[in-house]
């Protein structure tokens, strides 16, 4: 276990991401790598295709506002009780981003197809929704085991990279994700997996019968950084609650690009 995984700094973590990458990020409650988001913005990546799994929050809105994103694939962009993502709205209005509107189970199914190495997967629902018309990667086909049973075929979603925040890593780079099992799907589906963790524990999670079943084995992970309170200002499990003041201030400041930029500058330097 010498070469893999690599424990790196946050600044080095984001070096694994390149301009134009398709990058998958989890929903707010699954473990969003907010500390790493600072580094992403500092690195000033361009033309990212973000896949929000299955919806995006403040991280997606920040990446859009900071000009890193050219394509948004998501079932929603929302700050929850703090409103719709203001930078997302503006970018859409300005025609600055290509929008691939989706529906939650289609994003999961697309990633699961990539996880299974299958080029597509069928899914119920969707037919009759206008979502379908705007997706060249979704096609209506036929169930080969039934007569006149149309069903949607979704092309697999294979991210170049995914980045998320998790509870802890052991010294071998195995990552305990607990109930945030979306993170395992993300890692399986993505070519490269970048992880921030609250802490490193001097243990072997795969030998721990309680943890092993909810652990992402090191084999999937390219790099790991320790980032204490790395999901802040978002809540992280029972570890910490969301920073309501931060989120409220962001939702107000980000209504204008100038307000957003000032807010981010202050956040980056904090």
């Amino acid at each position, binding site marked *: 276990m010498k070469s893999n995984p690599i424990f790196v700094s946050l600044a080095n973590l984001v070096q694994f991401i390149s301009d134009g990458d398709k990058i998958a990020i989890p929903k707010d409650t699954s473990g969003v790598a907010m500390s790493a988001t600072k580094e992403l913005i500092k690195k000033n990546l361009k033309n990212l295709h973000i896949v929000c799994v299955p919806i995006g929050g403040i991280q997606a809105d920040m990446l859009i506002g900071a000009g890193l994103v050219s394509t948004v694939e998501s079932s*929603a962009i929302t700050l929850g009780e703090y409103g*719709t*993502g203001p930078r997302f*709205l503006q970018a859409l209005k300005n025609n600055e981003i290509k929008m691939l509107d989706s529906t939650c189970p289609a994003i999961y199914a697309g990633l*699961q197809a990539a996880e299974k190495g299958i080029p597509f997967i069928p899914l119920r629902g969707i037919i009759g929704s206008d979502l379908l018309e705007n997706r060249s990667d979704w096609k209506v086909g036929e169930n080969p085991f039934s007569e006149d049973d149309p069903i949607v075929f979704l092309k697999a979603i294979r991210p170049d990279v995914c980045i998320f925040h998790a509870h802890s890593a052991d010294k071998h780079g195995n990552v305990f994700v607990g109930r945030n099992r979306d993170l395992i*799907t993300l890692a399986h589906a993505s070519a490269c997996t970048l992880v921030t963790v609250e802490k490193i524990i001097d243990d072997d999670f795969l030998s721990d019968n309680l943890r092993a079943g909810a652990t992402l084995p090191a084999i999937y992970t390219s790099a790991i950084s320790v980032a204490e309170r790395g999901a802040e200002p978002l809540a992280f499990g029972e570890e910490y609650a969301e920073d309501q003041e931060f989120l409220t201030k962001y939702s107000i400041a980000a209504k204008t690009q100038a307000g957003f930029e000032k807010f981010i500058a202050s956040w980056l330097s904090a």
Partner: protein
Amino acid sequence: MNQASSAKSKIELLIASIARSLEGCRHVAVGASSPIPGAGALLAKHLSKNTMRVSILGSERHNFFTDGGVELFDLAAQGRIDAFFLGGGQIDGDGNINLVGAGDTYPQHTVRWPGSFGSAYMYYLVPKVILFREEHSRRVFVPKVDFISSPGSSSNNIYRRGGPMSLLTNLCKFSFNKNENEFRLESLHPGVTLEEVLNNTGFSFTHPKKIPVTELPSYEMMNTIQSLIQDQLSEIYPIFAKRMAAFQKG
């Protein structure tokens, strides 16, 4: 009755109405950002003496899921969810819902909302979908939605076991007639007139000659809403819970 206590009564009425609609369900799921449906489901669970299961997205406590976010959708597809809630920036008389945007053409709508979430799936697969939208206006209840996030019905060859059961708003409660593909006004909330509903609804609907008043919450419901529900909701919808608590003191 001051404005705050009136708003509080209205919310309690909606919560109670939802709880009544859910009677008999084995498993009710509630999506993100749905505090009143969440409260209604928790109330129904309490009334069922906790035999009903309630899963609330975004909750740690009211969450049976251990297989990631996909589990809710897989559960629905497996037929293990009886009821779910959907809303919409626009809803039309065919039960089509729009969570994407209005005005101009997609994707550059004049008004853009967060997005379709799981609607384009759950609406097909969950037997009882309760449409919930507080704002009752012609802005929301339109003749035809500008974007169909999910259609209210499908042709016979489309696999579909779910769809709209009812539509609950600040003014009234509709049921949805799947054969006729139209809404029927079932009850008016206290103090609301048919004319008010007609004036504020952009689609046509049927109604009985004599329209009942929406049943008020029982004493037990009121008590439960005020204690149990608020405590449990504060975990998931902190802002909503604060608002309710403020009403309580006000």
